[in-house]
């Protein structure tokens, strides 16, 4: 969580569970969603009741379920983070190549990822930091480039207080111009038009406070206007029973 020593009195940052719940609330019914390693793994358990979201895992599975009850684990049945999981009725297995064809082919509605840095033009840095023992990239670049919508869950600042939402990333990029929304402990921000547009803010967070803790340009008014229209829901109930439109464009907010 963003260090409280940096926060003025009266600011009550959200817990990371609350942040993950914001992301969970925004996943539309019927969406096919990939959940990244780290904070995103909090999301599935926080889906609102009745929300049917199909979880995708890079190692070849759709319909991924929660961790197994004690004593029932299948040791081969793991998620992309190598944790034991289960499969829900309706789930299916397929090859790694097919799992990534789904990703690259734009079939994943939402990719929920962690981040080291997100820039105001949507660049994402989440795979490499100085001091890594050896490079390792995994599926992050494929997900960031391929998912129809990329959202990030992160603490608003790094543990040393440095902004993670920045004008330009200094760390190696995962992909350029892909992040649609960032959920932090201080705010929910849409990345549009070269700005972070505030869609929601934690109690007590003011424009001045957010500006101080953010490296990139913030648009507060636009977000407020949208927020008054209500809720975290960022696109009209797509997926589910309704047919996808013919040649859907990327799922994005209408302009502010």
């Amino acid at each position: 969580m963003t260090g409280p020593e940096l926060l003025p009195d009266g600011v009550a940052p959200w817990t990371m569970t609350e942040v993950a719940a914001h992301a969970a609330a925004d996943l539309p019914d019927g969406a096919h969603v990939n959940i990244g390693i780290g904070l995103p793994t909090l999301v599935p358990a926080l889906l609102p009741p009745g929300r049917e979201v199909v979880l995708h895992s890079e190692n070849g599975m759709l319909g991924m379920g929660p961790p197994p009850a004690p004593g029932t684990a299948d040791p081969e049945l793991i998620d992309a983070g190598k944790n034991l999981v289960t499969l829900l009725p309706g789930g299916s297995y397929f090859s790694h190549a097919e799992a990534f064809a789904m990703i690259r082919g734009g079939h994943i509605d939402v990719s929920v990822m962690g981040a080291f840095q997100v820039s105001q033009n949507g660049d994402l840095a989440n795979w490499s930091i100085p001091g890594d023992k050896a490079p390792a990239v995994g599926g992050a670049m494929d997900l960031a480039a391929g998912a129809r919508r990329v959202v990030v869950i992160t603490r608003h600042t790094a543990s040393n207080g440095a902004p993670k939402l920045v004008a330009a990333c200094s760390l190696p990029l995962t992909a350029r111009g892909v992040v649609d929304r960032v959920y932090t402990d201080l705010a929910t921000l849409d990345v549009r038009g070269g700005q972070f547009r505030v869609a929601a803010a934690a109690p007590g967070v003011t424009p001045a406070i957010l500006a101080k803790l953010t490296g990139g340009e913030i648009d507060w008014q636009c977000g407020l206007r949208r927020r008054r229209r209500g809720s975290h829901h960022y696109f009209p109930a797509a997926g589910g029973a309704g047919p996808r439109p013919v040649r859907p464009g990327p799922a994005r907010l209408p302009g502010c």
Partner: protein
Amino acid sequence: MIDKRVATALEAVAGVPDGATVLVGGFGESGVPTVLLEALVQQGATGLVIVANNAGTADRGIAALLRAGRVRRMISSYPRSRGSLWFEKRYAEGSIELEVVPQGTLTERIRAAGAGIPAFFTPTAVGTEMAEGKEVREFGGRPYLLEYALPGDVALIRARRADRWGNLTYHSVARNYAPTMAAAAALTIAETAEPVAELGDLGPEEIITPGIYVDRVVHTGAALAWDGEGAR
């Protein structure tokens, strides 16, 4: 709740616009979504680009669309086959355009569209008249052609079973183009020969096309009948 079932074939093809590129499953008469194609004739969309291995037989399948004058262009591997009378008529009178594509290149172009690959190199057709105007590049001393992804606005396919998530299984070689086309279209519509299954009835190792690729399923009960002479 996810529920991709629709009640009728006409509902299933609702919204297919004029001018759409429609990928149609099937090889010969095996696996052709004949009921969806009949519904599309009824629905009325015209100026269509049809991507399919063949061009229909007698008055059935794609031939019904050709007969009704709804096809502007065919992209096909073997349009001229036994009984493809409506294709031959429309082609002879010059009322349809035709792009003939080697069969493996056709399937791979569709596969590429579903897999997010905009273009790839293939050895097929190098040095033939089908390579005319195409980019050639050598890899390891051998020449290859550059070919492009072929996405659809709509895919019409036939499956054996489905569930409400849109997971599909197939029957023998009636599978042919269906799994590949399902992934390559913005709107994928499947008719099924057997009634829709409960979620979980199709096992995770048994599902061939995961529901992520499928938008609407309709149980038509249609399957090929064989009268000892020819299909149906």
